């Protein structure tokens, strides 16, 4: 789907260690979310979670191009981005379980995971709201004359909110170092996004703002990597904002609780064949990596996350006094309440 990016070479000169690492990371993300879905059924995950199962290639392909000090702004469907940016899955699982040691100390939950240590400035419960925030973080980078960049993920539904336009316009006008990634999984909650979207979507809209944009098969890790790499290099070199429009598919319902009965099962089955993890597995196999090695990587990922699950489950609840901490410096948050 992407004409202008260098066609990723397959098989022959693959960077196998890197690809195995990516495969492992994708498996860790998948395991995290599968376990989180299970944990919700068991009542361990307390609020809504939005799995990105089937979309892992976007998170992994893009974030692999970032440095640790680059910044990330994510969405309600942000576990994959966050893990790919290097966050600790145990702290994330604890956050989902609302426990001490969670990334936000149990105050945020899945939709507000943040890990400032790895440059992850927050998921967001408000669709599209992270876009101006990302532009602003990039603005700070410019003012501080740093060479960091910002990656901002959002969904296909988010492009119909005003902050998408305002944030992209802002980033272009101020020539800011930000990579916008539209993770187009075809759905906005229970609505097929195409039914509520005019025009060809994120890339077309970005181009109307003179922001260079590429459309890629978001389930093809190598394509995502190649195009993201070019974009990140250009942005870091001062070339201004860019947008990647990644076509993918949401394999689960909107939330873990959504059965997604509004779409034909055949469609889901058809799309399952393009599972991004299986595609990487095929690449590795074709390049001669042994099945046992693939199994080992998958099992290792699963084991790590099962361990995180167990530890999170046994972690204590936040201390009640924490409810009143970190509100603000000025004024007493308890005043006049009781």
């Amino acid at each position, binding site marked *: 789907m992407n004409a202008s990016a260098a066609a990723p070479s397959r098989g022959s000169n693959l960077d196998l260690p890197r690809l195995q690492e990516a495969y492992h990371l994708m498996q860790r993300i998948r395991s995290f979310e599968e376990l989180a879905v299970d944990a919700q059924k068991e009542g361990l995950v307390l609020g809504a979670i939005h799995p990105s199962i089937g979309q892992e290639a976007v998170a992994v392909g893009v974030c692999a191009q970032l440095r640790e000090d680059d910044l990330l702004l994510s969405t309600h469907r942000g576990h994959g981005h966050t893990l790919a940016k290097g966050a600790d899955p145990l702290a994330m699982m604890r956050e989902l379980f609302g426990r001490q040691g969670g990334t936000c100390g149990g105050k945020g939950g899945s939709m507000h995971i943040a890990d400032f240590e790895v440059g992850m400035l927050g998921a967001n419960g408000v669709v599209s709201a992270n876009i101006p925030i990302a532009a602003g973080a990039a603005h700070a980078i410019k003012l501080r004359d740093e060479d960091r960049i910002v990656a901002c993920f959002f969904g296909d539904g988010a492009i119909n909110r*005003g902050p998408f336009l305002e944030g992209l316009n802002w980033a272009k006008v101020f020539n800011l170092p930000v990579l916008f990634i539209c993770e187009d999984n075809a759905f906005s909650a229970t609505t097929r996004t195409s039914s509520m979207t005019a025009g060809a979507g994120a890339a077309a809209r970005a181009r109307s703002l003179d922001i260079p944009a590429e459309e890629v098969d978001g389930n093809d890790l190598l394509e995502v990597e190649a195009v993201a790499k070019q974009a990140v290099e250009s942005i870091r070199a001062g070339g201004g904002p860019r947008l990647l429009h990644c076509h993918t598919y949401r394999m689960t319902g909107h939330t873990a609780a959504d059965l997604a009965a509004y779409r034909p099962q055949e469609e889901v089955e058809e799309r399952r064949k393009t599972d991004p993890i299986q595609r990487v597995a095929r690449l590795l196999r074709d390049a001669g990596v042994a099945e046992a090695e693939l199994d080992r990587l998958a099992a290792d990922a699963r084991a790590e996350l099962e361990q995180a699950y167990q530890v999170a489950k046994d972690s204590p609840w936040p201390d009640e006094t924490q409810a009143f901490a970190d509100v603000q410096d000025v004024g007493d948050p308890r005043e006049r309440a009781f």
Partner: protein
Amino acid sequence: MSKTTYIEAGRRALAEEMTRDPMVWAVGEDLGRGGVFGQYKGLVEQFGPDRISDAPISEACIMGAAVGAAMAGTRPVVEMRFADFALCATDELVNQAAKARYMFGGQARVPLVVRQPMGIWRSSAAQHSQSLEAWYAHIPGLVVVAPSTPADNLGLLKSSIRCDDPVVYLEHKNLWPLEGDVPEGEHLVPLGKADTVREGRDLTIVTWSAQRFTCVEAAEALAQEGVEAEIIDLRTLWPWDRDQVLSSVEKTRRLLVVQEAVSVAGFGAEIAASVAEALHPLLAAPVKRLGAPRVPVSYAPTLENQVRVTAEAIVAAAKSQLTPAAA
């Protein structure tokens, strides 16, 4: 009478009004699949996708378009999904919907109902749990409604749809499954009329929305100890039923306001201040408010619980008003 849930009562209200008046229509994200909580289930099959309309994720445009559609002769019911997301449409609601009639010298009418599911709903955290009724009560031009029972959700939503003013309609997410008796035939509850949930001589508890039930629980506990609390569920916050509140406090000489929202600058301040202004010489104890501390709502239950007003807190507050020292 029949048993119905709060959510089903809202659904029925909308269906009845859409049947009665072809100019009534609803628009919001995911309505075609029944809405995010199922409040619209089956309605698209009954009324078609033009009148139960999906929308892009565009709260500002949902609200703004509703203003235009209302001024041009229809009666839109707009769904904000969570009250928190209505903050993406504040200009449209406050600067446009609320002011159009006045600004244009009476030429416009903006008959528009904005459904905003509100309140704390287990582990939804800071961006999906707010109760901002005080904001809307402060804005000239807006009517503010916060039903607590299935019957009221039926009767008040119907009255709101018939009202020619823009109405902010706050359903509490925790109440969706609540069952209650609902009249069979046409049931309208007038805007601006409070409901005396329980009579009592010793103090008046004024509340609204889901806290009604916490207050009832507290009143039952108080009754065990011989204290009879009168509970008034305001139901409509603007206009609020001043007469009913004042005459109750004239009788009981004590006022406790109970709200789920942040207490500071919450709507409870309006009630408490109004009663103190009007009835000071009569009061046997200081007016008193209960509400959330001024902190965002947390995700973890141990933290989230810290901002909830509990029946125990209500009992304690009521007792403090009854001790002679307070008078």
